[in-house]
């Protein structure tokens, strides 16, 4: 009789305790999940701001180094033209950071595209400025490392342009 009373009393005490512990556990777990999600959102937001800032810095630097005509063209069309320092050939540098240099013929028609970029994870403004400096001051060296493409990537309708050496 004593034992069953004790067991009953223990059960009446233990069950609410277990329920409370479970409730606390779930509450803490939800709090941790909410904290994790909000910190991820904060990190994403600051990363977005970081990307915007570094892109803006790159574009500001590029614009400071363009000629007035190149700047007008870039602001209107998102490309500008440079004259190769060695050959006099005209290249059109499109906004971008990969396979964005187009070689033009005397009539302004596209001949091919070139891909050469400065090493490292640089923003488009920096990439385009390095391409401009390379073509205008040391065209041969720039093209010596470049990969030649049949067309610009943006003109290949979403597919990757093939290097000219691979195009039959």
């Amino acid at each position, binding site marked *: 009789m004593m034992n069953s009373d004790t067991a009953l009393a223990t059960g009446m005490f233990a069950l609410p305790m277990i329920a409370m512990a479970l409730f606390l556990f779930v509450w803490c777990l939800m709090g941790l999940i909410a904290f994790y999600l909000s910190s991820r959102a904060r990190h994403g937001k600051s990363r977005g701001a970081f990307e915007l800032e570094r892109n803006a810095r790159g574009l500001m630097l590029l614009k400071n180094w363009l*000629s007035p005509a190149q700047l007008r063209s870039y602001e209107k069309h998102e490309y500008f033209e440079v004259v190769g320092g060695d050959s006099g050939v005209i290249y059109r540098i499109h906004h971008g950071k990969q*396979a964005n240099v187009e070689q033009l013929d005397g009539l302004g028609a596209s001949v091919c595209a070139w891909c050469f970029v*400065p*090493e490292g994870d640089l923003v488009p403004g920096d990439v385009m400025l*390095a391409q401009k400096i390379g073509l205008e001051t040391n065209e041969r060296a720039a093209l010596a*490392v470049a990969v030649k493409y049949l067309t610009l990537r943006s003109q290949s309708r979403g597919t990757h342009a093939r290097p000219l050496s691979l195009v039959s």
Partner: protein
Amino acid sequence: MAIQIVMDRMGDTRHTFDAGDRIAVEKAKKRFMELTEAGFTAAVRTGPGEQRIIRSFDPSVEETLFHPRLVGG
């Protein structure tokens, strides 16, 4: 004040120095040497939209831009 602009993943990093300060000039020269030895190209503006490459440090240049080595994409 003279400035050295180094392209990097932040967009660029700018180092200003007083061309009349011997210690600052030495520091700028050391930076120039280190960057060019690491493959960076140093360019200076010669007019609107015009530039030339320099191979040695010139303390009288007001603005020097360093871009990393060009590689095929």
